Structure formats: C-alpha cells, structure tokens
C-alpha cells in the first residue's frame, strides 16, 4: 500500500473515531481486543454523542448475532459532508474495530467498508476517487 493510500485510509477512518468529540477511546473500548465482522446493517442511530450502527452477523453455526458499533459525532461527520444516508439499513458491510471493555457485542467501528472496498464514511464517491 502506498504511503498516500495509507494516509487516505487513516483519514477516511476518522469518520468513525469516537474519541474525537466526546470522550476517550480508552474509557470505553479495549485496544487489545480487535474485532472484524461481516454482516447486514439492521439499524442506524444518527444521534449524539456518537452515531451507532447495528450489524447482524451470521456465525459458523448459522446463528445470527447482532453487534453494535460506535462511530463519529453526527455534527463532525455532517460538517464534512457525511450525512445519515452514508450508511443504509440492509447494506452488507465489513467492520474492523475494537470490542467494548465490558465484553458485550458492542464496539468501536474503526474501519467500515462495503463489499467492493469502498469506505462507508467517505463523503462521496467523487471524494474517494480523488485518491
């Protein structure tokens, strides 16, 4: 990965870095417990202090588990042109993140992508194409 692409990736991730507005990552999430899931978005809460989106994930045993992931503050996202429509119920997404400290099925979604690799929280396709 080129340095430029890597820099873009980091900046793109900012849409879902919760520490930016409200509180510390360390207060709620455990950076020693990474999580990666693929699933279907079931609900989006575009609310303060941070957005949350919920993902149904099918386990190897066929059982469906619903995970909840935190993202950025709505105001900060919207000022960057990232509106509520950026993430749609029914979409398939891959979420890389970190689990909540309490061990529940909650976490911090640090990287959220569609199956074709597009970042969910980039402002728009044109913006992404520039990079």
């Amino acid at each position: 990965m080129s340095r430029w692409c890597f820099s873009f990736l980091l900046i793109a991730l900012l849409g879902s870095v919760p520490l930016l507005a409200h509180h510390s990552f360390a207060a709620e999430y455990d950076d020693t417990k990474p999580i990666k899931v693929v699933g279907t978005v079931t609900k989006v809460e575009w609310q303060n202090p941070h957005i949350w989106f919920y993902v149904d994930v099918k386990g190897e045993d066929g059982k469906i588990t619903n995970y909840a992931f935190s993202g950025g503050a709505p105001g900060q996202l919207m000022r960057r042109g990232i509106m509520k429509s950026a993430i749609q119920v029914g979409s398939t997404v891959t979420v890389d993140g970190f689990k909540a400290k309490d061990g529940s099925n909650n976490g911090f979604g640090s990287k959220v992508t569609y199956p074709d690799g597009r970042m969910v929280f980039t402002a728009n396709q044109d913006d992404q194409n520039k990079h």
Partner: protein
Amino acid sequence: MKKLIVKISFIAAAIAFALPAGAQTARSAPAGSGSATAIPRTPDGKPDFTGIYQWPTYLPGAERGHSSATTFDRKNFAPLKSGGEAFLEPRTGDPRHDEPRDFCMPAGFPAGMLSANAMQFFQTKNYLTIVHEFQRMSRIIPLDGRPHRKDIEPSYYGDPVGHWEGDTLVVVTTNFKRWMIDDYFYTNPKEFRMHSDALTTTERFQWKDKDTISYQLTMDDPKIFTRPWSQGFEIKAKPEWDKTGLFEYVCEENNRCPGGKCQGN
C-alpha cells in the same frame, strides 16, 4: 501493531481535523474600507467578532497533543509552586473520575473551548455570546462594564466579563470549579491536567486579518503556578460553515457505553 495503528489514527485525526475543511471564503469588510487590514466593525466602531469559526488552533511550533482538540503546550507552563503538583493528577481507573465527559459531564472552560467543533459568536453592544458545538457550550460574556458576580457557586465555565482595550476584546473569567484544563487524556492517559478553584483566565481576541482572530489565553492559577502563563492560538473564520450552522449536541441522547458499560447488545 494494533496499538501502533490506534496511535497513528489518533495523530491522523489531530492532523486531519486541524486542516481547513475547504477554501476559505473572504469575510466581508466594512463598506468603503479598501485597506488590506480592514476588519469587520460594529456600527459603533468596535471590532465585530460575529461569525462562525473553527475552534482555537495551534500557532506554528506549538507542541500538539494526540487529539483532534487543541491542547496546551507544556513548554508554556510556568514553574509549579510547592504543592502545585496536583496539577498533574493521576488517573485512578475509575472512569467517573478519569473521564467525566464519558458520562456527559461538561468539559468546562478552557477545555470545552478547545474542543474540535465549530463555534459561533454573536456580538451586540453589551454582550458577546459564544456557542460551541461541543456539548452546546454557551458563554454569555457581558461587555457593559459590570463587575464579576459575587457570592455564587464556582462553576465549570466560570464567570466572565469583557472589556475593550483598543481593538482587543479582553475577557476575564473567575470563579471556576476545580476541573480539567484540556484534552490531555489522549496524549498521556495516565494524567489529568487540572486547574484549581483559584484560576483566573484572561482571553484576548484581536483580528489578525480578515479571516483570522488572534486568541491569547492566559492562565493565572496561584494555587498551582508561580506566575501566570499564556498560550497563543488562532481562530479561523469559516463562513462556509454558516450554510449548515451548528448541529445539535445532546450528549444524553444516546450515550450507550458510559465508562465502557454498554446498554443493550
């Protein structure tokens, strides 16, 4: 590697959010003023700070914290007094103590002012009101020469009054509750930087050019420091943000994981 990525993300966040969001739109100068140094003025000739702005950002060369919020540069601190060591209070592991904002407690001043959100200034003859998007912090600053209020409880944002010194608006704030001074958590999660209840802050707002307010913040905390100390910042006008204005920020709306204890799922 995981920790490295997290740290890099923090730094990238700080850098990216410090960057201008887009091309600056020139702030309108008073009609008939052709000077390059013309600044907005009210009808009575005072500098006019009404507008929408980025939060105070670093001057070149300042030490930057690992946060999107602006933090104080420790090289500006005055020496600590004997007994002032409590300024760097250790974290205890109790999130209610270590990160009260996680429970929607206020950031207070000056930490809230330095948070990485938009802010809007409304100036009249007798007041400057600052509304900050973060926690919808509002500071109503009398400019009519009144003294500080007396016999009131110390507060998170203190008791401000402003006056003019030429083209500089000087805001002096007293009567603070002991609280955090900035977002230092992200730079060193083991320490708070706490001011005492003896803090007096002095802010100096002055137009540097038509798009930039020079903002100097002096911290006078005689329980902690041997003398007052100051840090300069810049506040950039962001007229393009006026299209959307400030967004609502009700922390209690959906604070799902206070202290890392999540509700549901």
